[in-house]
């Protein structure tokens, strides 16, 4: 059996946690990638791709955050398709999935890893 070292994650600072309004998204530009970051009511953080696959526009960070059957969601502000913040799956069209990214808080700063 061979072992491989875990690939090192690269974390990118996005903004102070206090800048993220509960249940409102913000968009970060990380190495050319647009990432929508969200803070839910219970304080959890989520990062997904900012691009809405149904319209092609980079707008998901501006959607309304909520829940569907307890699962945290964001609704595209363009035509209201709802995406899971945990899996990136479109709950209105499960064949469509958008990327999700790891997110954490280090010393009060929100950090996202895109690779």
């Amino acid at each position: 059996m061979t072992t491989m070292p875990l690939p090192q994650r690269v974390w990118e600072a996005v903004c102070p946690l206090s800048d993220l309004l509960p249940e409102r998204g913000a968009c970060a530009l990380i190495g050319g990638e647009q990432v929508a970051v969200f803070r839910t009511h219970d304080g959890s953080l989520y990062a997904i791709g900012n691009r809405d696959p149904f319209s092609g526009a980079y707008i998901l960070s501006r959607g309304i955050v909520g829940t569907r059957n307890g699962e945290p969601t964001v609704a595209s502000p363009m035509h209201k398709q709802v995406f899971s913040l945990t899996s990136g799956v479109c709950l209105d069209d499960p064949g469509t999935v958008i990327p999700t990214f790891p997110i954490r808080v280090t010393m009060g700063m929100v950090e996202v890893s895109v690779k």
Partner: protein
Amino acid sequence: MTRVLIVGNGPSAHRLAETLTTRGFTGSVTILGEEPRGAYDRVALTTHLTEGRDLMYPEIPGVTTFVDTKVVSIEPAAKTVNGTIPYDVLVLATGSAPFVPPVPGRDLDGCHVYRTIDDLDAIRASAKTATAGVVVGGGLLGLEAADALRGLGLQTHIVEMSPWLMPRQVDEGGGAVLKRHVEALGLTVHTGSGVTRIEGDDRVTGLLTPDKGVIDAQVVVFSAGIRPRDELARGAGLQVGERGGIVVDDGMRTSDPSILAIGECALHNGQIYGLVAPCMTMAEVAADRIMGGSAAFTGADLSTKLKLLGVEVAQFGAMAGALDVTYLDPVAGVYKKLFVSDDASTLLGGICVGDAAPYATLRSFVGSELPAAPSDLLFSPVAVELPGDAPVCSCNNVTKNDVTAAIKEHNLTDVAGVKACTRAGTTCGSCVPLLKKILTESGVDTGTGLCEHFTHSRAELFTIVQVRGITTFTQLIDEHGTGRGCDICKPVVASILASLHNGHVLEGEQAALQDTNDHFLANLQKNGTYSIVPRIPGGEITPEKLIVIGEVARDFGLYTKITGGQRIDLFGARVEELPRIWQRLVDAGFESGHAYGKALRTVKSCVGSTWCRYGVQDSVTLAIDLELRYRGLRSPHKLKSAVSGCARECAEARSKDFGIIATEKGWNLYVGGNGGFTPRHADLLVQDVDTPTLIRTIDRFLMFYIRTADRLQRTSAWLENLEGGLDRLREIVMDDALGICADLDAQMAAHVATYADEWRATLDDPVKLRRFVSFVNAPGTPDPSITFTTERDQIKPEILQVTSR
């Protein structure tokens, strides 16, 4: 590329084209229709006549339609029609023609058939100079035509050859009950009677029956059955039935494999189908075959349920059986009959007149074991669960299993969702109660609840927020809801809080409730940019302000367009540009136009008595006063208004939520108008009132609407659903029938007193301004995904790639 050519533009043709398009057909689809208009809903013809309803189907993108185009020949060998128009697949959807019995006088002025919008318009024209009318034919369509004549104010007669009305749907007992209903409405029924002659010189004066009776009438409508329109097919040498109809196989193919026939012109297994449901199925089978599928039409359920002249009539399954069970209530006018097998275990069919409630359930049990004693089944509602393979929507061939699967798969929570996913309930609508029932059986609450988070309607939430003095979404959902909300309930609560408290929509927690438009105080456009509409009250603007708008648009490279509400829309701004643009506009004296909000948009005006030679009142001043009074008022949906200075109505006030038209004596107030998808003329609420009375009435109308309307319900739909309608509304806002006017007045006074411009307040608040960035980690960087090209010297968004499946 396959070229599909459809001859005929009725409901079947429309469904075929629509099915091809939605299924991603890659060839071309062309429709040739002989009527001077596009496809429309023939099933609802009567409503066009009596209510003036618009029946047109929406246009299908990608389909080419030629109206007013009559096809006179088919050349099967050359694969062309009219000698020039080529096809790869030809679909005949030529429908049927009304049968007019060959009686003398049938061509007289005043004689009509009942099939197209033109027929109806002609009947309406004849009715203007008539007092009485006769319908020849007492079947389904005949009764509908009779209802139309009655709706036009004519003394109406029905002449039917059979001994009773609707002989194809009901038996003699049912016919007798039906006749009593119809006669109670003031119509005269002549059953067992034919027509000998239509009397008159040029114009009809009456109708002579075989017993030498004369019915005085100036309008005659023939509704004595239909004949398939197969003349084109005959001319092309296609096989037709002995009694007419183009012979087709299960795949809708005629005797020429490149030619299909669907709808009322097609003869399948010796049968012509005149009901909408089988015709729709044929269209879908044809679409599938054109796309290489193997769908088959294997006959259709001819069950019918309809409401004619206010009487429910239903028939399902067989119209005879070894045994039958009859329920008759001659006082209430109810007749129900079930036909069962000789051992009384299997349901064979049934007839309902006067109360068709058992129909939806019982139809599903035809051919299977009775779920309860026949006598119990005749009373409703029947509390039995439907079998899974029961047809729920026969118009679109949807079973209960299809519906339950769709509910599970797509997490459907309402009838609208079921309609969108399965098409059930989208044609005749008679199965909608069943869809609700299946939703309930599947564990979905179909109450008036807004969404999964609230079981309350918008109006109920409004009352809760008002009475309990709730000021935040968190408090409301913790105490009265579940979860953390969604894109449906959050904007509703945001709107209610704004209507009741009039604070800044981006203050504190409220900011997280707003749709993106309200959140950025601008309108999201398709490429992720926003548009800006400064308020121009009444459409009046100084040259200086016009210049400022021009300079701002030029300096920020925005696309400009004049709106329908007499304002100017500036397109193509990125979020980080919005504050800088608005700083310039606010400095020049502009304020938010609330084009982004469910709020008052504009009060449009004509130039009025100040300049116009015809104006009788100063419409511009009133429009400006009203716009400034109601600006910023958050409501269940957008609100539009207009003021016209005279009866010529140049401001189009009657298409608005509230419209005012000047009179010699004061103002007329019209409410509940709408343009948009379902246009509606506003209704006259009060007449010739002075300005203070006018404003007080509008105040109350608006506040009452805001309190009681459903989510996204415009005033037009609200007024149509308001119990008691316009009269009730007048009692409430003019006579204070509910004792709430003082409250409504106070609420509006509070709104007017506390209004503040949202954009000025935002520019004054550094915390709110910080949200206006494309990237939180690179505030100065513009969004690189937003690019433009140029068209007619202005910017235009580049088309974005869509990647959903």
